[in-house]
């Protein structure tokens, strides 16, 4: 398998992991809105459903993007595909 194909395979793997996490926090948990509201897990005292919509999921998305960017940079470096700094 060529270097490029391997690089793309890893990139695609990372994409799937990223989208899976994204799916859980943007869609998955909101299938259980009522259960979250009744849950005894109450971050900072807020009902869980309320907390996730106004901070929880949003914050996770921010962290997820930076994590994704870091991982992708590593993959690019591994195969020698990262840009020269002066590009």
């Amino acid at each position, binding site marked *: 398998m060529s270097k490029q194909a391997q*690089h793309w395979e890893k990139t695609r793997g990372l994409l799937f992991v990223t989208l899976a996490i994204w799916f859980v926090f943007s*869609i998955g948990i909101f299938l259980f809105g009522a259960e979250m509201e009744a849950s005894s897990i109450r971050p900072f*005292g807020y009902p869980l459903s309320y907390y996730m919509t106004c901070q929880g999921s949003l914050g996770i998305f921010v962290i997820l993007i930076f994590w994704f960017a870091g991982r992708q940079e590593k993959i690019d470096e591994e195969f020698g595909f990262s840009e020269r700094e002066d590009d």
Partner: protein
Amino acid sequence: MFKGNFINNLPKIYGTYTGGFIVFIILMAIAEQAGMSAKVIGICFVAFTVLIYALIGYLSRTIQVDAYYLAGRQVPTVFNGMATAADWMSGASFVAMAGGIYFKGYGYMALLVGWTGGYVLVASLLAPYLRKFGCYTVPDFIGTRYGGNLARLSAVIVLTVASFTYVTAQINATGTIASVALDIPFNIAVYVGLASILMCSMLGGMRAVTWTQVAQYIVLIIAYLIPVFWISNKMGAGVFPHLMLADEVARIAELEAQFGLGEIKNSAADLKQVPKGLSGITKAHAEVNTTPWKFISLAVCMMAGTASLPHVMMRYFTTPSVKAARRSVGWSLFFIFLLYSSAPMLATLSKLSLMDPNLATGIIGKSISEVQAIDWYQNWNQANLMFVSDFNGNGTLELNEFFMGGKAVVLATPEIAGLPYVISGLVAAGGMAAAMSTADGLVLAISNALSHDIYYKMINPKAETAKRLLIARILLVLIGFAGATIAALEIQGILGSVIWAFDFAMSGLFFPLVLGVWWKRANAQGAVAGMLGGLAAGSAYLIAVRSGYPGFLDITQLTFGIVGSVVSLVLMIVVSLATKAPDAATQKMVDDVRVPSGKAILGRQH
């Protein structure tokens, strides 16, 4: 100032700017104490900030193509994040969002999730690859990847429909704020707003818009956060509201029960008295009050729309590298998060200020005549944004007898909570910044697509630089005027048209963009069918629902993008597979897009 190592000086320049703005706020506060009238303070805030943006726009003027279209591809990661956040957060986010949460609660907060989650898609599916491509506009990518003028033209059509729907709402918002702050009629204020928007973008294109958007982000975030923190501390709710309002949220639920929310219903005849556009609180503040599908379908539409809106995508064309584009998406979302996570807190504080009889500011339970005598009530009632009426004739204001416009939640809360007027002036300036920055991005996206993709790529490929930029500027002005003219007609509300814009973009562009990178087999015929078919199906569904068709699967006029994008996906796959695979050169191009290193597909000047 904009010469030499301007980029290296950015932190210093914007640091000075932020300091200057804070000094200006303090001066205004002193002037207020010295007796300056509310009116003059409002005018000063709006006029001063708009003049600064115009000055930045003038200093960023350019006669170079890549500066005009791409800000010279040298916008640093963090600054591009701020510019994108301003580009992104429109009048709808700044002025309307907290109001929506105030009235509709959990069901409405799907927008918070949708308008942030979409950035994960932008970062992972699109932005870095489109940056590698080196295109000037989104249709530029579609046109080159799929090949052929028809694909390019289809992309321009979708872009124009979505962005134009969006921009009329933003010009409407600038007009609303300008008319309140400067005390002029709305249909004149719209053109004042337009003039300010054009001053920022006309001379310098993307370069000017970039540097004004950074300045506008700073103003809007200060204007949003100060009232939230101030009210929270004043009320004794907590030093850091985001983590400390749980008791207040619980207290609202307690008061809702006490005031009979949901039990006492207004009769249709009573509701007729309420001015159009105002609403009362009918949904509980923090309860889950919607079905999972309703919540998720709205969030999905906003997420896919985020990843398809060209004015956002083109911000990532301006970073120095692919790596920077990826990180920049993270920064954008971080800066957006600062405001979005505050909106529910503002809604909570605003509601509690009005509802809690233990607070000096609470009005529910007071006598009607007492409320009608309050200064801020009279002002906002005159502006047609607040209304009370004694439906049950007991002389006391009940929860179901108080009505407010969605915009008033952000704009009026500082006054309601008893903050000095200088904060209201600041909020007006923030709202103006939010609406202007988005309008600038949108007008530029449309006029760049028309000037670069239609005029230069399709009509006159031999045009000289000077002529291309002249055409671009003329189109910019024309589109601005068209937008303002439609905005002056006030066809629909700010929030509704913004949501429509997302659905339009999702219908026509989401799958053609994503599959362009992720599916080599996608070809021009498939893309054209996907774009036009998706847009047509989405629009048809919207029109059908608007004219009384009940719809299916609970898809409403706010989520018609689901219909459009599914049709778009199916058409794109079926038509692509039924026609010839893209040629070897196109396949090679897709391979090159997938790695960050190496030359851009499109040259630096094209």
